């Protein structure tokens, strides 16, 4: 109800209704601008003029949206089968309902080509009209006796083929960097060590939710551009977090009428598969407030620079950055220039907004009033965990250290008196220089080497105090070593963890 009241109660009477706009659309004289054009108009002519002249602003985004998928109904085979497990082009799909309904999740991968081909690609292939191989198994019942089936299908063979995305169109997203010494592969793509690159996602000032941040015009029933066809918002997306401008959308649409250009399978090395979704929302300019809101610029939209090398829920941040800076190609972190690139396609986002504009101008797309607006006060909670997991800091103990100018004999004695296997080599500031093991000392004796510099390992694999112990433990196994010095961000040695500590705690 609040929505309707909002339309009519403006004191100056400076409002227009969706019905009025639709009348204009049908007559072919609605004024439609893309979000890009609207910003320029407001800048040059002001909000008042923009409100008077513009009926609808079209927005758009095109990015990797992992919580996407498609619901398909296959129709019944003869004899009928109640599918228990099913694969489409080798991608395992869910069977959440009755006999022949399947849900293709964008992130499910093939076993044959993990990370390369997944549910997103299957959906794209189906949308493109390609034949897809179906393989299914069942346990067999009296009413559904069949236990296996193999066939090929196209979208025309399906009864329903609906895109059903439970979290799309993030209002804004993090900028990702990696402060560790190794390349990491994440859902924010490949991140080079020591902040050598940054990635970001989202269309910034073109994003649908950013142009209507109070969700005045959006909610259940809003007709939208989805995957090159028409779809609907069916509510807030999962993890919708409006208070900190991290709103999301849940959407559906008839995938049979979509286009493979706007729905593309994607591969993220060592992370998984996903799907790029083109999504655009028309924003009716019902009042001056909306005209002003749709004028938002990239320079006003900020996001956090997040360190993805720390595998925790709350990752460390390097401050904030605007979408204007992000789109410029480089940002500054701690005084250092870091090149940044986008994960989502700005070119395609603009194409979405332009296509939606042309549909409205042609009269093939009319606007709808939402039946229920998106919530603007919900909170995205963390998972309730009933078991604590150990972190490096909980098992780390003080490291036995030495400096580079000490004699090997002194170090050998220290290994005996302290009964340890690892001596950490530090400089005068306590910063990590290398590591020496009892084996290195033994070898030095056998080979008659006298200088520490000849035997210490300088390429030291390390751990951070706030890392989960399991991850540090995996690193030890991966490099076939039995201890990790624990260091802080300035490489100061805080302590050491050994495989013995880990096995005591994790029982392996």
């Amino acid at each position, binding site marked *: 109800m609040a929505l309707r009241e909002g339309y009519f109660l403006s004191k100056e009477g400076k409002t227009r209704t969706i019905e009025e706009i639709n009348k204009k659309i049908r007559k072919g004289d609605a004024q439609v601008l893309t979000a890009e054009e609207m910003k320029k108009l407001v800048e040059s002519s002001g909000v008042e003029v923009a409100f008077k002249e513009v009926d609808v602003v079209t927005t758009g985004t095109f990015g990797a949206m992992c919580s996407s998928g498609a619901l398909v109904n296959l129709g019944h085979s003869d004899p009928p089968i109640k599918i228990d497990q099913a694969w489409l082009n080798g991608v395992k799909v869910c069977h959440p309902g009755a006999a022949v309904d399947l849900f293709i999740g964008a992130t499910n991968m093939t076993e044959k080509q993990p990370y390369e081909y997944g549910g997103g690609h299957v959906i794209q292939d189906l949308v493109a009209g390609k034949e897809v191989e179906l393989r299914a198994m069942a346990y067999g019942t009296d009413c559904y006796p069949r236990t296996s089936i193999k066939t090929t299908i196209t979208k025309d063979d399906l009864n329903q083929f609906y895109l059903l995305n439970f979290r799309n169109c993030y209002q804004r997203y993090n900028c990702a960097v990696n402060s560790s010494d190794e390349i990491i592969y994440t859902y924010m*793509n*490949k991140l080079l060590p020591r902040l050598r690159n*940054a*990635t970001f996602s989202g269309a910034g000032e073109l994003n649908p939710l950013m142009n209507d941040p109070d969700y005045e015009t959006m909610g259940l029933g809003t007709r939208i551009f989805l995957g090159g066809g028409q779809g609907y918002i069916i509510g807030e997306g999962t993890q919708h977090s409006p208070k900190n401008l991290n709103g999301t959308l849940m959407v559906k649409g008839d995938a049979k009428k979509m286009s493979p250009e706007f729905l593309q399978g*994607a591969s993220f090395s060592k992370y998984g598969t996903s799907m790029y979704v083109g999504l655009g929302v028309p924003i009716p300019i019902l009042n001056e407030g909306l005209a002003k809101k749709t004028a938002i610029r990239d320079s006003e939209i900020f996001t956090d620079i997040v360190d993805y090398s720390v595998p925790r829920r709350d990752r460390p941040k390097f401050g904030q950055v605007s979408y204007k800076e992000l789109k410029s*190609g480089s940002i500054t972190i701690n005084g250092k220039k870091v090149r940044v690139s986008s994960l989502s*396609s*700005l*070119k395609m986002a603009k194409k979405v907004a332009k296509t939606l504009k042309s549909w409205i101008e042609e009269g093939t797309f009319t606007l709808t009033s939402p039946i229920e607006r998106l919530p603007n006060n919900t909170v995205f909670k963390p998972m309730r965990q009933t078991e604590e997991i150990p972190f490096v800091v909980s098992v780390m103990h003080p490291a036995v250290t030495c400096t580079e100018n000490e004699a090997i004999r002194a170090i050998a004695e220290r290994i005996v008196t302290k009964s340890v296997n690892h001596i950490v080599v530090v400089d005068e500031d306590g910063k990590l220089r290398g590591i020496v093991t009892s084996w290195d000392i033994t070898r030095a004796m056998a080979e008659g080497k006298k200088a520490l510099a000849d035997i210490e390992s300088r390429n030291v694999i390390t751990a951070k105090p706030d890392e989960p112990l399991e991850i540090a433990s995996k690193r030890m196994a991966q490099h076939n070593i039995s201890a990790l010095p624990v260091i802080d961000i300035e490489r100061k040695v805080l302590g050491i963890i050994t495989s013995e500590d880990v096995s005591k705690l994790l029982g392996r």
Partner: protein
Amino acid sequence: MKRILIRVNEEQVSEPIVAEVIIEYRIPAAILSAHINSKGGEIIAEVPDESLDTIVNAFRKRGVTVTVPKLIEVDSEKCFNCGSCVALCPVEAISLDKDCTVQFDKEKCVGSACSICVDACPARAIKSIKPNGANHAGNNKVKIS
């Protein structure tokens, strides 16, 4: 500047061929990447346009394979212009134009010796083409364009 791919075999690895050629012909070649072990190796170098023929012939006289590398290919049909690859490229061979279209500069690209962008392309539109076989020393058939 012209870019060349110098490929040495197992026997040539221990000889200072690149150094010899640079000293003898006084050509300021910039080594962009080098991957060498006891079995052979690949070196990508940049040389001034006017020295190209001289340096190619000098290497070939010593039995070393020299080609002009064209080792990264971008499938513009598959590319959906996200631009993920842009900031990864160490030689800034990839950029976004005014239209937000990804532009790939083959002249600047270091080729398959780098390949840093290949596994970062969500559309899998970038392919690294390994030159066939590293063992045809003395092959003079490759035409320098």
